[in-house]
């Protein structure tokens, strides 16, 4: 309980600090520059570029700044598509639309689920795998975009190693094109976070307020963790914890509304949901960790440790799993593991986001109707 209160304080403090800062800066500059300035700072670009004039989702770049209503709308729409996946596999919602998977970073799994989602919505899909070396400069990135735009595409699904790429692209594409962030650097991976929320909701119910969620591992380099934290807090989760050694916890992460733990046994005590993150092997090189063995010893999720969480706790992992590094096989394959469910739900969630951004007024009802008429 103390932790909950502490977190609430943390959240409030962060919000107040931010507002105070804007006030101070705004107050100081107001004399000279009335409105524009504040917009710049708050990042109108960052938060509002995703929504159209009616407050509907236009691009899906980050969870940050989206309201509970939008997140719930995504989850509800995904719920209706989850049915589609089981019985009839295809709906004609995006027939005639062209979606380009623009992947500047290698990924088979994520790209495949985006591709499947697009195909189940009857869209045409084009896969572009562009190695980072071919586009080391922004001008070629823009050139690539211009070329694809000229092919009358309707949506870019973008993955790139630089944080902020999805925003950059959304800021520069023609107005009718939608941008969906499939992972930008360490910044955001919003569809992954939403499929995680979907998984939690299916297993734990819609009331996130009673949940304690622990995210364990390399928070520093994880865009998944950042998006999960935003999503969990937007859905009013009771407590969000991050667990890891100091070398893998970014500075002032508390300001995002989490409690930080450096000890796994404390961190997962009484948790309802435990999310394990993948540990990249290259972390040993930058002197962030001594060895995989020591990491597993301290932060690996074993049966014994998982027993400290609530008896009905679930364990999640965005994949691919390093068995024996961050998680023991028996836990990953155990009764309380929902790791494969996450993969299945990923398609429904991505269908939801694609239909909401590209389908204009297509909402959960319409999708549900489709399902019924079939």
């Amino acid at each position, binding site marked *: 309980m103390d932790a909950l209160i502490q977190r609430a304080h943390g959240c409030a403090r*962060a919000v107040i600090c*931010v507002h105070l*800062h*804007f006030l*101070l*800066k705004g107050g*100081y*500059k107001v004399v*000279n*520059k009335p409105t*524009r*300035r504040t917009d*710049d*700072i*708050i*990042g*109108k*670009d*960052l938060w509002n570029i995703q929504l159209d004039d009616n407050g509907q989702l236009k691009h899906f770049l980050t969870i*940050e700044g989206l309201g509970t209503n939008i997140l719930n709308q995504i989850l509800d729409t995904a719920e209706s598509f989850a049915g589609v996946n089981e019985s009839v596999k295809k709906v004609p919602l995006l027939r005639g639309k062209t979606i380009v998977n623009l992947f500047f970073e290698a990924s088979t799994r994520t790209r495949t689920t985006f591709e499947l989602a697009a195909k189940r919505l009857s869209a045409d899909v084009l896969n572009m795998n562009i190695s980072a070396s071919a586009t*080391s*400069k*922004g*001008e070629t*990135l*823009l050139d690539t975009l211009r070329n694809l735009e000229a092919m009358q595409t309707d949506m870019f699904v973008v993955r*790139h190693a*630089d*944080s*902020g*790429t999805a*925003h*950059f692209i959304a800021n*520069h594409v023609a107005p009718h094109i939608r941008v969906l962030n499939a992972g*930008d*650097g*360490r*910044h*955001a991976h919003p569809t992954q976070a939403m499929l995680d929320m979907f998984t939690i909701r299916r297993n734990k119910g819609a009331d996130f307020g009673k949940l304690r969620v622990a995210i364990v591992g390399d928070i520093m380099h994880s*865009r998944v963790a*950042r998006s999960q934290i935003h999503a969990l807090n937007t859905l009013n989760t009771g407590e969000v914890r991050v667990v890891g050694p100091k070398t893998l916890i*970014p*500075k*002032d*992460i508390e*300001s*995002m509304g989490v409690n930080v733990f450096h000890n796994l046994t404390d961190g997962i005590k009484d948790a309802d949901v435990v999310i394990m993150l993948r540990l990249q092997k290259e972390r040993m090189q930058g002197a962030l960790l001594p060895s995989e063995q020591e990491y597993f010893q301290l932060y690996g999720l074993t049966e014994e440790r998982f027993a400290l969480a609530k008896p009905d706790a679930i364990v999640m992992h965005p994949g691919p799993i390093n068995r024996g590094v961050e998680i023991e096989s028996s836990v990953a394959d155990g009764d309380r593991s929902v790791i494969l469910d996450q993969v299945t739900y990923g398609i429904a969630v991505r269908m939801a986001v694609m239909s909401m951004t590209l389908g204009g007024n297509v909402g959960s009802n319409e999708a549900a109707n489709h399902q019924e008429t079939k």
Partner: protein
Amino acid sequence: MKNILIKNARVIDPKNQFDEITDVYISSRKIAGIGTAPENFNAQQTIEADKLWLIPGIVDLSARLREPGLEQKADIETETCAAASAGITTLCIPPDTDPVIDEPAVVELILRKAKLAKKSHVFTLGALTAKLKGERLSEMASLKDAGCVGVSNARNAINNPLILRRAFEYASTHNITVFIEPHDKHLSEGGCAHEGAIASRLGLNAIPYAAETAPIAQILELIRDTDIRVHFGRLSCARSIELINEAKACGLKVSADVAAHQLHLTEMDISSFNSQYHVIPPLRTQRDMEALRQGLAQGIISSICSDHQPHEIDAKLAPFPATEPGMSSIETLLPLTLKLVESGDLNLNTAIASITCNPARILGLNTGHLALGQAANLCLIDPEKEWTFSTDTMLSHGKNTAFSGWNFRGKVIKTLLEGRCIYSNE
């Protein structure tokens, strides 16, 4: 040369502690009289300067003009024109041009080009080590003879403390000031934002305070008990100011400057991934910004520079971490400095000193003040003029500014270089 009379200007000359409304007489490119006309003075041109300020021509400690090597971004002619429009008459180029300023020929090339442009007194810093590689010493004595006013390794840190120590000793042998942009390569590797809440939220590689403060602390220890003059440029952290202050108290000959944009922007400004705010050192916290302002007011930091870094448009057209750092800021040096007077952070005298006589003293130049017989490098300002800064009207070839749309009070009306009008806005 014409005899010029500037009538009824408020003459502000911090170095000579002069601040009066009076007339200034210019003859043979020099200041021939202040208040009283020299004998047989016959004005061929009279500038009515009622309600205007007359200050010494501004001295900019660090401006990258991009020539030689990066002429697609800007060149000496375009940038000295921009400087003139901003009241700057003297500026200093760091040695990280291409080729590096590590031999007299490069110095001569730059000085010749600047002389042809006729818009500014341009000075250069020489490289502290050959090719800025931090391995061998540069020929500092020859560079000094060629006109370099100091030596620096720019932003290329010297990793080996022994080489650093010897470079200091050699520079000291020839009585050359060493200019340091404190920046640890390893601590800041791949970084593009201040290590704090915003970088953590945006998932940007972060640059910790220690990337600046650790090299400062190391250098201060290396130069203890010596009489080397070291200037620390472009400070961004509150702790750096404490370190400099402690060193001064111990009698070390150190000085410091700050880039004007660091006095007005913070890490919050990058929160929309706007690449115009991508600068190195990164924009830090509100607390640091306030400490920098205070450091100026208390004289711990004596100078404000532009840290001018013009870029072509493409350099900023990419995802934030992939963009090139730096701001085209030569035209905002004076407006941003005057804004600190308006906000009450600096008094007018300190503000003007920090962009005139103080940087001149650091560079070892007899300029930046208005004594009789001084070259007539002057800047006339209309202190009440309200205007909006805009990329549309920028003269610099680089339009990469974060201040487009900002309103300022106080604008340059005329700039005189050795009695010759190099900019006029009438």
